């Protein structure tokens, strides 16, 4: 008897606990990969058909809820979050709708990742024209930041979009391209989810090809000339460089990797198998050392150089270049996180810029810089928020920092100083990262900032599409 009594009492308490628990966690807490901005949102919603998503937008309109659109959430400045808003998760909206190997086009739903597309088109010997160096991002998230990568021949991502469908704040689906609704097109590409929901996208593809890697070491003051000479050679299709962050050769030593189309393409008789991530333990270990101290940074830089040398002369397909490893960068620590910054600086100003950057960082001993990768972006001012005001080098900085408010403040100060240096050299910075820059810095880096925010309100007067980036930088 006693035990039945216990059981009854238990069931009651169980129910009470569950009740309080569901109450307590009614709003999901959402954070992006940088883990600096956990935000409580009202709900997470997703749909796998245009009508589902249309309904979500209409419901939000009726209820007066804000919507923050999210892909893989690799952006780091709350671009996919808004307190008490609806998070529209685009990941399940990821079908490949149409693939025309003859015309070299593919139409995909915007939650598809570059990796999904690669798997679909690699067997037909086709490849993406422009994407990030890694393939883990969604098409919608990439278009919304107007991403760039290793390719130096196919211009901007915006040029590879034949057309796309956008669901606006009223729930209407519009056709967007360079010719159709072009004002909205140029605002939505690099529009950080503020103009509407990108539904499906038709992308122009190119041929997959076999490239030979050529790697060399040089000094930072030789780099601009080296690159200008290199780019004259049409065979070079992709390019990447790294500059040392080790105290022993800080911002002086560099190595470059060029990917040139090989003469006998028949070597690629059948599509190269897509590579999967292998052996992440080794880079993970050395990156771990770099986090620790100066000796670790030197060891990391040495292995990077050795690695670059070891791949010199190797052959690799275009598709495989465009799916670099990323897993080894995954980092979980209770107190620290890793954030990215990216600065663009005109090719001719590179040397002077690096000298100034070195000076700025000279006294920042607690600023834990782990890696700088350099790529090239060609001038392209089609998108309203264009970072490539002329032909530029882009420097991606990987920074380890604490998640407490003091660390955020310290890192912020260093970053704002670096951005000032960048702006002094006619440069700009990339917007998908943490909101360290000031409003003034954004306006200087992006001369059409004001126009962009006006367009936002023209196409979304009720500010249905919201996120922390807009909240912070709107004018």
């Amino acid at each position, binding site marked *: 008897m*006693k*035990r039945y009594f*216990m059981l009854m009492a*238990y069931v009651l308490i*169980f129910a009470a606990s569950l009740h309080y*628990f569901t109450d307590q966690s009614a709003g999901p807490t959402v954070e992006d990969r940088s883990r600096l901005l956990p935000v409580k949102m009202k709900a997470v919603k997703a749909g796998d058909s245009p009508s589902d998503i249309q309904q979500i937008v209409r419901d939000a309109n009726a209820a007066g809820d804000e919507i923050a659109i999210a892909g893989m959430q690799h952006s780091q400045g709350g671009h996919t979050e808004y307190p008490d808003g609806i998070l529209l998760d685009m990941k399940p909206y990821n079908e490949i709708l149409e693939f025309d190997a003859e015309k070299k086009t593919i139409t995909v739903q915007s939650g598809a990742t570059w990796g999904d597309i690669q798997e679909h088109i690699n067997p037909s010997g086709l490849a993406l024209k422009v994407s990030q160096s890694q393939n883990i991002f969604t098409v919608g998230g990439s278009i919304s930041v107007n991403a760039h990568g290793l390719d130096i021949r196919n211009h901007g991502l915006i040029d590879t979009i034949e057309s796309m469908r956008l669901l606006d704040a009223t729930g209407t689906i519009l056709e967007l391209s360079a010719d159709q609704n072009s004002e909205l097109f140029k605002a939505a590409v690099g529009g950080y989810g503020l103009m509407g929901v990108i539904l499906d996208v038709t992308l122009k593809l190119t041929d997959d090809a076999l490239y030979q890697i050529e790697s060399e070491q040089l000094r930072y003051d030789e780099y601009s000339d080296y690159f200008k000479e290199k780019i004259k050679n049409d065979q070079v299709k992709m390019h990447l460089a790294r500059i040392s962050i080790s105290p022993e050769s800080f911002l002086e030593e560099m190595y470059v990797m060029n990917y040139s189309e090989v003469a006998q393409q028949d070597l690629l008789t059948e599509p190269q198998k897509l590579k999967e991530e292998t052996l992440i333990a080794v880079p993970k270990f050395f990156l771990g050392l770099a986090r620790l101290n100066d000796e670790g940074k030197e060891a990391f830089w040495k292995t990077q150089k050795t690695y670059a040398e070891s791949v010199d002369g190797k052959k690799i397909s275009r598709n495989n270049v465009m799916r670099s490893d990323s897993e080894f960068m995954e980092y979980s620590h*209770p107190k620290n996180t890793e954030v990215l910054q990216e600065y663009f600086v005109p090719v001719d100003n590179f040397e002077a810029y690096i000298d100034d950057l070195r000076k700025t960082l000279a006294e920042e001993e607690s600023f834990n810089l782990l890696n700088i990768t350099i790529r090239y972006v060609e001038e392209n001012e089609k998108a309203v928020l264009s970072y490539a005001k002329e032909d530029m080098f882009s420097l991606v900085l990987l920074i380890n920092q604490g998640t407490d408010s003091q660390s955020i403040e310290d890192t912020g100060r260093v970053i704002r100083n670096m951005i000032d240096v960048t702006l002094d050299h006619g440069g700009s910075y990339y917007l998908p990262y943490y909101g360290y820059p000031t409003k003034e810095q954004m306006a200087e880096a992006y001369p059409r900032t004001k126009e962009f925010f006006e367009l936002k309100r023209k196409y979304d007067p009720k500010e249905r599409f919201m996120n922390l980036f807009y909240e912070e930088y709107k004018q």
Partner: protein
Amino acid sequence: MNYKRFIVYQGAIGMASTMIFPFYILLINNVGNSYSQFGWAYGLFALTAAICYPFIGKLADKVGDKWLLGVYSWGMALTLLFFPLANEIWHVYILQVIMGVFGAVQRNSEKTVLARHVIKETAGKEIGKYHIWTSIAAAAAVIGTGYLVDFFTISSIFYIASAVFAWSGFIVMKKEKQFSGLPE
């Protein structure tokens, strides 16, 4: 409760407790944010247990193992219901202290039951057999839970473990003529 049922019982609670332990750090990650807090949470647990052993030892001989096992099961079942509600690091500390008390009850009773049951001559074999089954149950629980956390939230793990404890408390309390913690 006969000896066979005791093994089933130990297997079940072993499963339930190993289920939550490794994943506990994830909860602390949500409410606190440092390894030192994690260290403290475990330290408090061990410390309370140490303080409690002398009392529990005496109690066991007075009230019997079965009674204590019941207290342990129901106590854990109820305590675990509070974990999902913890949202401050001090909540976790308090819960750890309570868990420390129950932990000591369990460890002590497990040994006293064994001591009272096994016959000296075959003690090695018996206790070996006992450990096989309880270890298998524990291993299955940790591995299985690894998958569970992928699908559910950490909180649901606590609810599931709590239900297992409640069930174990229920079977301990089942009337049984022979077994009262004394040799059969």
